[in-house]
């Protein structure tokens, strides 16, 4: 490969993973599987991957996103205002999410949601 000065902050290369999650990605449940032969128990490991794969669609996630968006200083953003943006696309995309919002907004559910 040509020795060029690559200057992309958004790209990271490593010859081999060292983080546990990345190592697991390479070798766990990958490769030849010899049917019907002994596999040693990897219960501990499996828990790790299952944890990582669990999808938690919760109010907490939404609140985290809301916080991230709220943190932005809009004056730095290139002038997006309500007036100069159409809303059609956004509305169709968010239809499903709104159903969830309805649930969250139903009185009496709040405590339950929060305690998750």
């Amino acid at each position: 490969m040509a020795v060029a000065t690559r200057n992309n902050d958004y790209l990271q290369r490593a010859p081999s993973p060292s983080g546990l999650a990345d190592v697991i990605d390479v070798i766990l449940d990958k490769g030849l599987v010899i049917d019907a032969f002994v596999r040693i128990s990897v219960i501990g490991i499996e828990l790790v991957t299952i944890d990582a794969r669990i999808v938690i669609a919760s109010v907490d996630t939404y609140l985290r996103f809301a916080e991230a968006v709220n943190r932005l200083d809009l004056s730095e953003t290139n002038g997006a205002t309500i007036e100069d943006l159409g809303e059609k696309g956004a509305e169709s995309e968010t239809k499903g999410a709104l159903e969830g919002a309805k649930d969250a907004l139903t009185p009496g559910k709040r405590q339950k949601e929060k305690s998750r």
Partner: protein
Amino acid sequence: VRRRDLVAHLRSLEQIFAETTVAPCSFGTVLESRAAVERDFLAPRRKELAELLDRLEGKVQMNVKAEYEEESVMRAIVSEDAEVVRVRERARALGAAGHYENIRLGELVAANLAARRARDADHIAETLGATATDVVAEPAAAEGLGVFKGYFLVARESLPAFDDALEQLAGEPLRIDSFGPLPPTAFAGLDRS
């Protein structure tokens, strides 16, 4: 099983891979003895294994993970989604009383992210796939900032092209991590499901 066992498995594979073509076994595969390996595994599946080795010869695996950088992706969402802008203003005006508005805002953001993620993941798979022999993409996580995770089987001589494609894809708001060249663990299954 400990972390060091996993790392040791990977390092052993890498050492062998540095010298020859290898069809990696899944982690945790154990046979009784050397004789058992020959008798129960190598002999009955000789033909399949030979074909597999042919297919993997001269190829390496590149693991690719892409995710959004939080601040820049949020900025992009706010700059194109009027509904997000509106709800955000309302939530801000309400301050501490805006709990439900904030939940709503977060949902809007999550929906926008999901659409964006689907688009970008396809683009990544396509762009990198053009320089690869084969690709296995993991199902995308439905939440969070992850965009794409996948494994590419790349001919050694195509690595520069693959790297150029990575270079082209990475950039605000998309952060890409690549690992490799690695032994082709994701492509060694005889029946890939």
